[in-house]
């Protein structure tokens, strides 16, 4: 028993180091003096908070409206989370709960469409948004994220499948309408899955840079992912430590959120996997 446990602990510790190391490296880099991520020392020889200050400072030589990127990202992520979650729940609910003509075909369609690599539709989306005059607006981004939300409905459907029908039937005998059954019986039971979906849609919008880069054209409207990407994606870009500082501020809230809600993550993923 003893040696096996010891070995297990050693293995766990090793994995833990592997998990934390890159994160720690980023954090330490963000306090490093100079511009380069590369360094001989794991722990910086000289520490500075300048990179964090630079993110929020007006600079003559480079405009990095980090605060407005942060605010934009919050708006986009929150709005797409609410809209996307609602759409996904409605889709999943109707597919899980009702037996109607064309249902199987619909499921198949959703399944297949969900597999189309999203960025291939960028050009068409760009032109559509341009036509309805929504290009370069963060709400267009919300629209695009939410429009595709229905395609991720299988996890939620799997969850709804597990809610016994007898509950609804009892309510229906009492004369409840479809809508009130959904609102009063199904939703309260679905807290874990709602949390899970909200979390993943929020995180999805928080980190996406492919669509955001195509749709948002002016720096003031950018989201964090686009802005940070732009800091290092230029032929004469040199501010890698600034990038690291920006990344830390992006990653910390979302990481904490995941940690805090990991119970729901477990529930949601399990529901989606075993039943979906």
């Amino acid at each position, binding site marked *: 028993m003893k040696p096996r*446990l010891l070995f*297990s602990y050693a293995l*766990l510790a090793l994995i833990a180091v592997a*998990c*934390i190391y*890159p*994160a720690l490296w*980023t954090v330490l880099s963000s306090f490093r003096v100079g511009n380069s991520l*590369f360094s001989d020392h*794991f722990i910086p020889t000289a520490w500075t908070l300048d990179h964090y200050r630079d993110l929020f400072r007006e600079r003559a030589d480079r405009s990095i409206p980090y605060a407005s990127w942060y605010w934009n990202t919050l708006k986009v992520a929150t709005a797409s989370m609410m809209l996307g979650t609602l759409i996904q729940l*409605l*889709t999943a609910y*109707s*597919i899980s709960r*009702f037996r*109607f003509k064309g249902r199987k075909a*619909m499921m198949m369609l*959703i399944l297949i*469409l969900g*597999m*189309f*690599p999203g960025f*291939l*539709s*960028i*050009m*068409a*989306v760009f032109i*559509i948004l341009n036509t309805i005059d929504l290009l370069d607006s963060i709400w267009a981004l919300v*629209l695009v994220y*939410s*429009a*595709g*939300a*229905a395609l991720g409905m299988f996890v939620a*459907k799997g969850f709804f*499948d*597990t809610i016994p*029908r007898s509950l609804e039937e009892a309510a229906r005998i009492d004369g409840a309408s479809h809508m009130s059954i959904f609102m009063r019986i199904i939703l309260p039971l679905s807290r874990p899955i709602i949390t899970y979906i909200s979390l993943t849609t929020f995180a999805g919008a*928080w*980190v996406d*840079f*492919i669509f955001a880069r195509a749709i948002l054209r002016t720096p003031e409207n950018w989201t964090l*992912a686009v802005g940070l990407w732009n800091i*290092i994606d230029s032929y004469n870009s040199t501010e890698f430590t600034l*990038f*690291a500082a920006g*990344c830390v501020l992006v*990653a910390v809230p*979302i*990481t904490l959120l*995941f940690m805090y809600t*990991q119970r729901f993550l*477990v*529930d949601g*993923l*399990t529901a989606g*996997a*075993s*039943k979906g």
Partner: protein
Amino acid sequence: MKHRAATAGWLSVICAGLGQLYNRQYVKGLSFILVYAAGIYAIAAKLTPHLKGIVTLGEQGQHLVKVGKVYKNVPGDHSIFMMIYGVLAILVVLLFLLFYALNIRDAVVVGRRKQSGSELRVLNSSVFPWLLLSVPMIGVLFFTIMPIVFTSLIAFTNYASPNHIPPKNLVDWVGFATFDKLFNMNVWSNTFVGVLSWTIVWAILATVTCYFGGILVALLINQQGIRFKGIWRMLFIIPYAIPQFVSLLIMKNLLNEKFGPINQYFRYFGMEGLPWLNDPFWAKVSVIVVNMWIGIPVSMILVMGILTTIPKDLYEAADVDGATAWAKFRNITMPYVLFATAPILITQFVGNINNFNVIFLLTGGNPATMKYNNAGETDLLVTWLYKLTLDFNQYNIAAAVSILLFLFIAAAAIVMFRRTRSFNEEDMIQ
């Protein structure tokens, strides 16, 4: 009275809404007539040029005219815009035809019911799901289906740099010439076959490693006698929680052969280190290993969730029989976990075929190679598509490849999903 249904039907054929009026559904009838009129007007007046446009794709591109000393821009036909408007117009026409057909059906159904004198039952439970689905469907129609149709159409044109880039140049329909090029022109076909093979190898390896890695880690934590389970789990979730564009770009720096810290540690122990991202073989190993770093937490969470659902009495019964720990693991835990998580393998497999982030951010498809056209050694089909469209503007080839990719994924997914419980046994769960 006998031909009531037929009469109503024919009236609605002549003009939507007439049948409904005949059936004494006045509000419905009037609104149908309005929609019908609006639709006919829109098609005749507004949509015809767009419908024509998708056929011709324009006659005269943008050009400059010299007036005196200055050149003036004369905007011409933009083939790609015309194509999208054409697709939108076709959608409108199709929806109008759907409305027209439903209108006739409605007139007949209502008429028949009036005929038999039965009550006008509210068809609530078959309509309600469609009502719920209508909003998501509109979104999907505009932002998923329309773009897919558009992309597919591009494959049949010559839309590519340098000679056919609007607005100055027109794009033309070329039939299957693009596919011909993709399969028969060595430069393209070699790349396609090479990238496709690596995509499949990658998808299989990435899926299997993450899946079994996740099971392993979950079991490791869940062993009897291991303490602080919650803390271990929390630590192992970190890679999943950090945004990928952050962690992968960092990884890229960590793995630099000469200057990256990983190899510096190797050297500290007197070893040479590995050409992580420089050598075609090791670069492939690296992306799979890094993908494990990102993917294992998800599988781990999953398996840990499933472990808690294994009925305790199974183990108790086994204890009564005096089973060893290993026997319990082999005969209860493992089969249970495998059975419960099998469907996720399919999703992960498809996800990995389309795993854009890992490759794009970690290697960018490199190491570069002369073997391929516009692709590197670790490029997957998706990242190659990205380069083809955004870097090299070879839109038609990219569209052709994406059609093939899409067909492949769809076929595989349908075959596999047909066998899962989600489709076949879902009503048995309750």
